[in-house]
């Protein structure tokens, strides 16, 4: 006699089809073992259902705790006038993030949006901007950022702590073209109106193919935030939230055609650093993965990826971070542990993390598409049926 015990709980819950119910009823008639199991299941089900429904405690009002959404340090962070022109998010742009195929954004469009958002020259301090723009001078900056990579449900997949040191050159041309040389990458954005009023609300109507609109508002904590929205064909495709005080992009999300966020980057900590800048080192990235669920791994990072040499290797709690840079591009690759992911959190991933042969990998940063394909192709390929793989397929199939 065949038994189908998994149908018994469904029977109790009214979750079977008529055909299945008929089969179970018929089977129970001649199977004492399954009748006993059904009694046990009913007993366990009744026990859980006997637990009282508790009232919601007083005091669950997010207003009181809304500060938790914002980093403490950001609230008090101030930047030097020179550092206020930093457009710091570009090198940290995620190469893609989506939790499942139904929310995937078109690859080329996602990359275009990333490029467009990265190219927005953001200057919040009007006086500093005016000074820099009129002098055409360079400014050095250093900043430390902690970025949380989240999926569209707001779940943190990984936290990446990055210290960036570099130089920024801001130049104005007669057409009010704002050019930002951010480390090795060059960004441009157009400013409308007089140079003195260049702020986050001032980008020109378009960046690339994208329309730009900007509004200034107070968030629910009372902090001034500039919201820049990029649209394409009448649809919003990306939002940037820029701290009104520092000009730092604190939040960036990509939207799919339906307006749902598919990729969210959120700055959770920002701290200016006063350390002197080593002229011979164009950048300095320190990355660490926190709250990892993996076992540590050791080993060496590849000497080069996509022709970009390994500049530095940093040990972290769970493995290694390799920073690759050639003066023009910078990207970090992490080997963040071995063994199997914790089943309880195995779907709490971002698409830039995948598992291969017991080792988990993550890539932070963005490259031109052809270089990114080369880089990915030279790393161990993800395994089938791995929850981390979804984003990979979306981006690189």
């Amino acid at each position: 006699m065949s038994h189908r015990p998994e149908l018994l709980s469904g029977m109790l819950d009214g979750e079977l089809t008529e055909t299945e119910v008929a089969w179970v009823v018929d089977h129970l008639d001649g199977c004492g073992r399954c009748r006993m199991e059904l009694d046990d299941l009913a007993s366990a089900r009744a026990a859980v259902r006997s637990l009282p429904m508790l009232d919601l405690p007083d005091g669950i009002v997010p207003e009181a705790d809304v500060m938790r959404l914002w980093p403490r340090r950001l609230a008090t962070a101030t930047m030097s006038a020179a550092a206020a022109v930093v457009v710091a998010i570009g090198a940290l742009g995620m190469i893609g993030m989506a939790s499942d195929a139904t929310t995937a954004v078109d690859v080329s469009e996602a990359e275009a949006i990333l490029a467009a958002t990265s190219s927005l020259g953001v200057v919040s301090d009007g006086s500093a901007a005016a000074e820099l723009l009129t002098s055409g001078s360079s400014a050095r900056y250093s900043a430390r950022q902690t970025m949380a990579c989240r999926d569209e449900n707001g779940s943190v997949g990984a936290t990446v702590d990055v210290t960036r040191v570099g130089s920024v050159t801001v130049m104005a041309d007669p057409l009010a073209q704002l050019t930002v040389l951010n480390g090795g990458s060059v960004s441009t954005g157009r400013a409308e109106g007089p140079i003195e009023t260049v702020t986050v609300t001032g980008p020109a109507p378009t960046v690339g193919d994208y329309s730009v609109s900007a509004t200034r508002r107070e968030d629910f904590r009372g902090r001034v935030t500039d919201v820049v929205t990029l649209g394409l064909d009448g649809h919003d495709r990306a939002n940037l939230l820029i701290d009104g005080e520092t000009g730092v992009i604190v939040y960036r999300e990509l939207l799919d055609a339906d307006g749902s966020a598919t990729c969210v980057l959120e700055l959770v900590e920002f701290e200016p650093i006063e350390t002197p800048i080593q002229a011979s080192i164009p950048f300095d990235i320190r990355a660490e993965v926190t709250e990892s669920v993996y076992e540590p791994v050791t080993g060496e990072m590849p000497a080069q990826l996509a022709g970009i040499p390994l500049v530095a290797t940093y040990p972290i709690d769970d493995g290694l971070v390799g920073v690759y840079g050639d003066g023009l591009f910078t990207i970090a690759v992490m080997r963040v542990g071995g063994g199997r992911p914790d089943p309880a959190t195995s779907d709490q991933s971002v698409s830039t993390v995948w598992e291969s042969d017991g080792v988990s990998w993550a890539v932070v940063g963005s490259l031109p598409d052809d270089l990114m394909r080369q880089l990915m192709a030279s790393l161990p390929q993800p395994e089938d049926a791995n929850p981390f793989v979804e984003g990979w397929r979306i981006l690189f199939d």
Partner: protein
Amino acid sequence: MNDPSIPTWEDVARTHGRKIYNYAYRLTGNPHDAKDLVQEVLLRVRRGLDSYTPGSFDGWLWRITRNAFLDDVRKRKRRPTSPLPDDVDRLATVSSPAADDVLASIRLGEDIQKALLDLPVDFREAIVMCDIVGMSYEEIARAIDSPIGTVRSRIHRGRKLLKERLG
């Protein structure tokens, strides 16, 4: 946010807050953790409503809730603590004729809660969603992003383990 089919944040807190709290309480076994989790979920909902598009709101909400719980599990990496000792002590001193019954009921509830906490988290979650929150298998499947067959299996195996622990 003018779409009437999209609830406001306050609507979510009012209509779903209690369910989320009970879900969190039965999963964590700790009223403080449960309260924190509800706070976190409501914050995420508040932030996410701006980008939410009409569809399966419950599915969206429960995915957020579940993710918040799993994030918390990862962060804490510790066993949940057992609830209710304070209540038991307090009730034990009450001389009402019904006190024994109340106490027995609470102790039984405590046993059930402990047995729940002993279950693997996947099984515990499926059972809490089904028997505490009152979700259908299909709703659970959407929330945990798994096939209905997986839901059915987890509930079934969870109940079997629960019965073994409760005797």
